[in-house]
């Protein structure tokens, strides 16, 4: 029952909306099947499947809101959950920022579901783990990794006659390979919608090569360097910055997108003119649901165009207060780039540092989005287009806003999927700020 058909879901949702005596009612059904396999020290450590389906009912009496959730769907259970939500709403304080349920909408479906990913079996998961472990064992390397796969559905209906239903699936794989003496470490990550496109044996090879090549790392004095950030390395900083595109924060004066004297930076040149950031629910590489959490339709929305702030994210409340039209909150983040791969960028670099991955990134100063974090699992010195030798890891203190003003070249975007689903290019940047060395391998 975890994954319902559209008809099954609509039958339940219609009953719930009809049962409610509140001024407004929104019912949301979601179900998922999440599979995973984890391995470490060249052995499978845990593996499991979690199935879950739940119904959430939001009701409102005036500006008093109540929410209740249940995972039974009998008529009696539906009546119970509606009553519980209504009881909670009657006791709740008024929310002055209450927004009514959205009107009836038309959604253009996006291709979020792939049958092959949904059909994964425990045997396939075990085979992926073995395909990762066996070549490592053969070369006296040690693999630790994690595969997650997911299929899900979301359906909702409200008392304004709105309805939506869609299925989704995806998979994420990461593998860290270390040398037996602990002196080398490499990593690979792959985020895909279609598991048919996944080849663990070839991917693990990337991590194995980096592990072997990172032994006997040399120390380089911290400072400002030309770097090539692989997409996974850049994504850590850019996704962090993406959390601060809220219009309300900017208008309230507590964001890097606030203006001295008041107002926000929409229209201002904040980045290098080659920076273009947008979201698009129908992007073929990173499709997401065509609606946001409130049921507002998502659109293709530019956040940064040619380095200028094109839009900020307005909640429905803030849009109304500021006289703006609310758009669906973005579900993905896409950064445009060029056509070159990471290897192409390395080949064209006279001197620089290749960063495989960034780690433990935290905000140091929200005023400038100064972030700190570390390099990890494959940091190399580049000279005359070649990886010359491995480097000890660095701590960086860098703002992605400053970083995206120091662009040398952007490569071809690839899908990066830990957390927010993104398309991020590899990038060569000038004057990236490393502030100390780390002994960690």
């Amino acid at each position, binding site marked *: 029952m975890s994954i319902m058909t559209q008809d099954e879901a609509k039958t339940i949702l219609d009953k719930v909306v009809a049962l409610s005596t509140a001024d407004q009612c929104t019912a949301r059904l979601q179900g998922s099947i*999440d599979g995973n396999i984890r391995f*470490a*020290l060249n*052995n499978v450590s*845990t*593996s*499991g499947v*979690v199935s*879950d389906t739940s119904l*959430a009912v939001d009701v409102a009496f005036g500006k008093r809101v109540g*929410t*209740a*959730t*249940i*995972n039974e769907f009998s008529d009696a259970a539906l009546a119970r959950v509606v009553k*519980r*939500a209504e009881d*909670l709403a009657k*006791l709740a*304080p008024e*929310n002055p*920022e209450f927004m009514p349920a959205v009107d009836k909408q038309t959604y253009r479906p996006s291709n979020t579901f792939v049958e092959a990913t949904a059909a994964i079996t425990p045997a396939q998961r075990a085979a992926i783990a073995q395909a990762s472990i066996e070549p490592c064992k053969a070369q006296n390397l*040690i693999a*630790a*990794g*994690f595969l*997650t796969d997911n299929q899900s559905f979301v359906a909702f209906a409200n008392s304004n006659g709105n309805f939506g239903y869609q299925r989704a699936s995806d998979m994420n794989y*990461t593998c*860290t390979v*270390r040398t037996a003496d*602990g002196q080398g470490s490499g990593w690979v990550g792959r985020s895909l919608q279609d598991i048919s496109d996944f080849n663990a044996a070839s991917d693990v090879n990337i991590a194995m090569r980096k592990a072997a090549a990172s032994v006997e790392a040399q120390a380089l004095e911290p400072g400002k360097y030309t770097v090539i950030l692989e997409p996974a390395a850049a994504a850590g900083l850019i996704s962090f910055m993406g959390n601060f595109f809220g219009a309300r924060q900017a208008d*309230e*004066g*507590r964001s*890097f997108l606030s203006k*001295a*004297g008041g107002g926000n930076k929409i229209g201002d040149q904040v980045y290098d003119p080659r920076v273009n950031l947008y979201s698009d629910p129908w992007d073929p590489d990173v499709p997401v649901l065509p609606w946001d959490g409130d049921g507002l339709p998502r659109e293709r929305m530019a956040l940064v165009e040619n380095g200028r702030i094109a839009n900020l994210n307005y909640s429905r409340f803030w849009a109304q207060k500021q006289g703006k039209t609310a758009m669906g909150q973005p579900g993905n983040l896409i950064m445009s780039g060029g056509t070159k791969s990471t290897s192409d960028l390395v080949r064209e670099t006279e001197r620089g540092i290749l960063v495989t991955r960034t*780690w*433990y*990134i*935290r*905000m*140091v*100063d*929200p*005023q*400038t989005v*100064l972030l*700190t*974090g*570390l390099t990890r699992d494959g940091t190399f010195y580049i000279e005359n287009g070649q990886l010359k030798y491995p480097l000890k890891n660095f701590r960086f203190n860098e*703002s992605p806003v*400053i970083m995206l003003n120091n662009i040398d070249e952007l490569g071809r975007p690839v899908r990066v999927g830990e957390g927010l689903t993104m398309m991020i290019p590899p990038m060569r940047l000038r004057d990236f700020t490393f*502030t*100390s*060395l*780390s*002994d*960690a*391998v």
Partner: protein
Amino acid sequence: MLPGFRAIAAEQLVETVEIAVKKRLADAAMSAATTAGASYCDVRIGRYMRQFVVTREANVQGVTNTESSGVGIRVIADGAWGFAATNDMSAEAVAASARLATDIAKANARNQTTPVQLAPTPSLGEVSWRTPIRRNGMEVEIQEKVDLLLGVNAAATGAGASFVNSSLFLVNEQKYFASTDGSYIDQDVHRIFAPFTVTAIDRSTGKFRTRDGLSTPMGMGYEYLDGDAAHKSTAPNGVVSYGKSYDMREDAIAAAVQAREKLTATSVRPGQYDLVLDPNHLGLTIHESVGHPLELDRVLGYEANFAGTSFATLDKREQRFQYGSEIVNLIADKTEVGSLGAVGYDDEGVQTKAWPLIENGKLVDYQATRDQAHILGKTESDGCSYADSWSSVQFQRMPNVSLQPGKVPMSVADMIAGVDNGIYILGRGSFSIDQQRYNAQFGGTLFYEIKNGQITQPLEDVAYQMRTPEFWNACSAICDERDYRSWGSFNDGKGQPSQSSAVSHGSPTTRFDGINVINTARSLG
């Protein structure tokens, strides 16, 4: 809302399940598992309740009550672990899950090279434990909580805050554990957290600064919010910190004033400073640089793909590695009253205890579960097993790890009086550490310059960078037990899929000499 949790009415938060019902379910599971071929079985019947009240300025943004109930069954069969969980609390469903866990264990056994080796633990019979609370937060009316938070917000706004966000989080874990070792353990665990953030804005310059509350999550009831003045500590410059009782309104007023002060504070000159670290700040540094590196699963490599490994390898224990200076003594403790990690028994039925990790600066021990104890040559578990839900498999989690008070009488004022060129840091700030726990960088909430034994002015843009062993070996003074206070992490993540746990770290105010401080101010042009 967290996955797996359902919203419930407030009055349901105080309901409990009969012990006899839980025992019958546990027996059904254990019987099914052993019949199916399991050599060991443990059953966790959990009811996990949370309440969140979230506000900003004069608005209540949300009141949410959630519950998640179900049964998690772990077995050993053919020498391998298997786990299955169900939210169907019928005897039939629980027995079916026990059989599934046994099947999974047998499947896992086929590729396992070394059988699981469990350290023995005594059969405890039927026992129970409860967090020693005076007032159950779940029984306090919502209106009282809303009035508290809106009062805090009004006080902060009245004192000059541009914005204020405040929240209240209550957790109650009703956990029943049973195992084929003959233990039936009923526990009722409570935690509370009341954070806020005050923001001050200078519209003309566009500058903004925040000041978070100086509270800490605690393993206490609603009495934590009584604001008992006996638990206050006042620094030589008048900054007030809190121990086992918190005055949220008083702290919010101070926060509004200090957030505004931060807008014009002197930007720090980078260089080497002697740092005087308040317990509300040092707790996080202990957590990252001592708590995590001494988790045995990290040391062994089980977390290599996510959280990382550890520099504190097993050979360092054999060599009595000089982790810190000789005055540094850090203990692991699952029993400290009021702490987040305190329970009577861990999630594999082991009675909890305290034990040394660093003695006179030397590394002496790690944190282990039943299946890890033998690796350290131990005959009993340290009681470090925890699962964040009935549906999560239990694994090794950090106990409270705390720095022991100095043996020489010393107050905070005494300590500051001895510093020529230093910075006094209070409260949690930015934090980041590498995957083997060597290189770390920490910010803070409040920073004050110390010159020639006097606190001279507030500072801003401060962060210190450290290498763990050098940092702890630079520890030159620790205040005595009168200044011992706790800091806690309410949501510490670990594992894949990630699980959250709560843990406290106690210490007195402590001095570290010659630490590298950087300036974090940047300009976006």
